Every structure is written in C-alpha cells, then in structure tokens.
C-alpha cells in the first residue's frame, strides 16, 4: 500500500538526483551553470510564485490553450461528424487531412505571422491547427463506431434530426471526443511554448526566452518546472473527465 503510493516518486527523485549531478558537472566546466542546479531553481521558483509576473504569464498561456482548444473543437467536431457520416466526404478529404496533419504546426509560423500579423492571432492559429486533427479523427472514428441499432432505435421513435444528434450521436461519441481533447491538450501544450517565442510579449514561451536574455537561468529552469507541472495537471484533468464520462 505504502509502496504503491511512493512508487511514482521514485522516478521523480531519480530525475532530481540526475539533475543535481548534471548541473554539478556542468558547473565544473562553466561556472555560470551553477544557477541551473536544483536548489537555485527552487529558490527562484519560490520567489516567482510569490511575485506577480509568472502568474500573469501562466494565465495568458492557459487562456491561449483554451482559445486554441475551443477553435479546434468548433472546427474538428462538425468536420469529424461529417467525415464519419458521409463516405463521400471522408474519401475526398482523408488524404488532405493525413497530409496536413503530418506538417509540424510550427512550420506555418512565418506564414501565420505574415498573414495574421504579430500578436495572439498567429498563436491561436498554430494551436488550433495542431489540435484539430486528433479531435477530428477521433470524432470521425466515434461516429463510424456508433451502434447502428441506436440510429435504428431513434428512427423507430421517429426522432427528428436534432433529437438524433442531441440524444444519440453526440452522447454516443463523447468518449471519443474526450480522447481527442486529451490528445489535443497534450499537443497544444507542447506547441504552445515555441509558438509563444515569436511576436508576443507574454506567456510561458516568452518567459523562457526573456529569462535567457536576462541571463536569469534559475528563472528559466523554474519556468520549465512550471510548464511540466501545468501540463501534468492539464492532462490529468482531461483524463479524469474522460474517466468520469465512462463511469458516469
């Protein structure tokens, strides 16, 4: 019992030890690397958490995640439903989707900035572009897997199109949509930091570059910890949402 609770911390502890050892070795080569070490990092984190700036960067980043996810949902779910319901639409778009999906969203960055200008818009675009595929594909798979008898049942009740979508199709694919959301959040969170390194003046990605420019390497390491921790929380939230739906 106690072992089960402690087990997840073994890996974290090992990583912390490796981190300390690595930082120690690096410091022997370049003394400035001392601020990469665990202790200075935790100190910096403590100060940052008490201050205002980090929270603002976090809030802005999370807001971008939210906007990107909502855009991806608004585009991905209807396209996914269409793909799942219409073989014609599916066959004519699948190669395009598979092609577009394999392009790293970041490669659109210069183009996005040129078209949408500097600011939040290109970041939203990149996040939505990264997140739309898992949502679209999972939604389509969900629709294709719908029990045909559910649709027959709806027809036997003379259900209207709206009743069929609201009472059968959408709840029937919610588990898959939530799987898509979970994958999308993971991708968004990974794309977010580099996406915030260009043309914006706030957010965690910006904060990383800013710390580097200020030579505040402890802040940089602290930001990395925060990014990891928030990502973990986001994934956990998406996972428990999924679990909750399946075990209603």
């Amino acid at each position, binding site marked *: 019992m106690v072992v089960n609770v402690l087990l997840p911390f073994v890996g974290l502890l090992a990583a912390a030890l490796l981190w300390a050892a690595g930082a120690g070795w690096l410091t022997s080569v370049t003394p400035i690397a001392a601020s990469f070490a665990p202790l200075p990092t935790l100190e910096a984190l403590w100060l940052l958490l008490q201050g205002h700036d980090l929270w603002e960067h976090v809030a802005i980043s999370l807001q971008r995640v939210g906007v990107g996810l909502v855009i991806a949902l608004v585009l991905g779910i209807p396209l996914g439903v269409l793909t799942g319901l219409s073989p014609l639409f599916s066959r004519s778009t699948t190669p395009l989707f598979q092609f577009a999906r394999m392009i790293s969203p970041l490669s659109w960055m210069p183009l996005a900035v040129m078209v949408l200008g500097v600011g939040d818009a290109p970041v939203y675009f990149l996040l939505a572009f990264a997140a739309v595929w898992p949502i679209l594909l999972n939604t389509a798979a969900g629709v294709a897997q719908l029990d045909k008898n559910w649709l*027959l049942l709806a027809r*036997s009740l*003379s*259900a*209207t199109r709206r*009743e069929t979508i609201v009472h*059968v199709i959408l709840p029937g694919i919610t588990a898959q949509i939530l799987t898509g959301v979970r994958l999308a959040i993971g991708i968004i969170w990974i794309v977010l930091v580099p996406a915030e390194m260009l043309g914006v003046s706030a957010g965690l990605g910006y904060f990383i570059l800013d710390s580097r420019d200020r030579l505040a390497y402890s802040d940089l390491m602290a930001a990395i910890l925060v990014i990891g921790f928030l990502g973990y929380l986001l994934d956990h939230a998406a996972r428990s949402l999924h679990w909750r739906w399946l075990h209603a």
Partner: protein
Amino acid sequence: MNAPLVPVAALVEPADPAARQTVLAARDVGFAHAGVGTIFEKVSLSIRRREIVALLGSSGCGKSTLLRVLAGLEAPATGDVRFLDQPQTRPHPRSALVFQQPSLLPWLNLAGNVGFGLDFAHQPASDQESRRQRVTAAIEAVGLKGREGAFPAQLSGGMAQRAALARALAREPELLFADEPFSALDAITRAEMQTLLVDLVHRWHTAALLVTHDIDEAILVADRIVLMGGRPGHLVQEWTVDIPHPREDFPSEVTALRLSILGALRHA
C-alpha cells in the same frame, strides 16, 4: 400497479382471436436493395391484437428486411402496410422494436434507457409523471425492479435484454417487433426470456412479430408461425398453434408440429 396501462379497447375484446381487430396489415409487399435486387416479394400478412406471430426462416432469407419494412423503417417497393387501419408512412408511435443485441445507450441508466424517446416530438404527448409511471411499470414487468439506477455495463446479457424489452413495453405498444431477440443469449436465459415474452404479451395486451430462425422458439412462443423462404423471399406456409402454455407440457403436439415444419422446409 398491476397493468394500469391497458388500452380500453383491449378489455372489451372478443376472446376469439379471429374476431379481434387487425393491428398490422401488409398487402403484396415487396422490397429491393439497390444492386442486390429483390429481397422479397408479394408478402401479405395480418397481425391481430394480442397475437404472437413468429416469422421463421433460414439466415439471409430476408426476415430482418421484412421486419424493417413492416415496422415502417423502410418504405416498401410494392404493396402497402397499414397500421391500425391507417396507411403507415413512418414507424407508428404504438409500435416498438427489440433487436438481437440489447443496444442500450451506455450513458443512460436503466430508467433512462427504458424511458428513452418517450418525450420525442413525434411521440404521443404525455406529462412527465405518466412517463415515469410507464417506466416504473415496464421495469417491474421484466423483473428489474430495484435496478433503475444501474448502467448497461453493470447488467448481464439477460438483464440487458430484459431492459431492452422494458424499453419497448414503456411505449405501450400495440405491436412489438422483435428481431431474433434471444439468439445471442445462452440456452437457459433464452428459455427464461421466451417464457417472459409470452407472459408479457398476454399481460400487456400487445401483439408481437417475432423474427426467428429457431423452430423450437417459434413453436414454444407463437400463436401463429409463418415460414419464409425462397429467392426472392416469400411466405411459404402458415401454421396456427393452439397448444396451451406452457407448451413444454405437450411434447407430442410440439413434436408433430415440428415435423410438419421440417417437412415444409424440405419441400421449400
């Protein structure tokens, strides 16, 4: 609580089945699938109130397709179907469907599944309280009282099929369409469900069209057996079964009927 939902007409009905009102009347019905051709043709079949008709035939002979046409889920290519003397253009609100798989909605609990669709736009207007009563009565009738809050994943195969039956009963159907409803169940559960079906049909004063490829099931359950066969499919022969229930108590009559059906199958 004992069967409070009986249509008034059923109570004043004559005991003689032949004199009862016809629920469903199909005349010269045919159906074709694009590319596959004619599935069945010239099918004429009447189902009277409170009558169990078994539609018997080998796999692939078109039973399910015929059931869907009779249930109003597909329009017939030829002929016409009347439900309670009205031309049927879409599934009648007083008909209900049971499939081979329970096909319960996994995000709704038992009560939610049984009450599913009762408030849809094309269903007869009803208030929430009466819907709740119908759900309670249907769940009780199939022996699942106390499990209202259970989700489909928590129900065994037999219980899930009972729930599917309750979902059909909650609509107070004049006619229950059942497409091989018990063929996915183990033999013991199947026997239980066959008894339950006969019992429910009698207590709820509904009629039933039971599609099956199981000769014994047809003999144990039906008031009338219709054999379907040929290519394209058509109705080959018909038997009226007037063996009292439970029919397991009349082995010689059952055997005689089975031999008669097997003989017809050989010549079909």
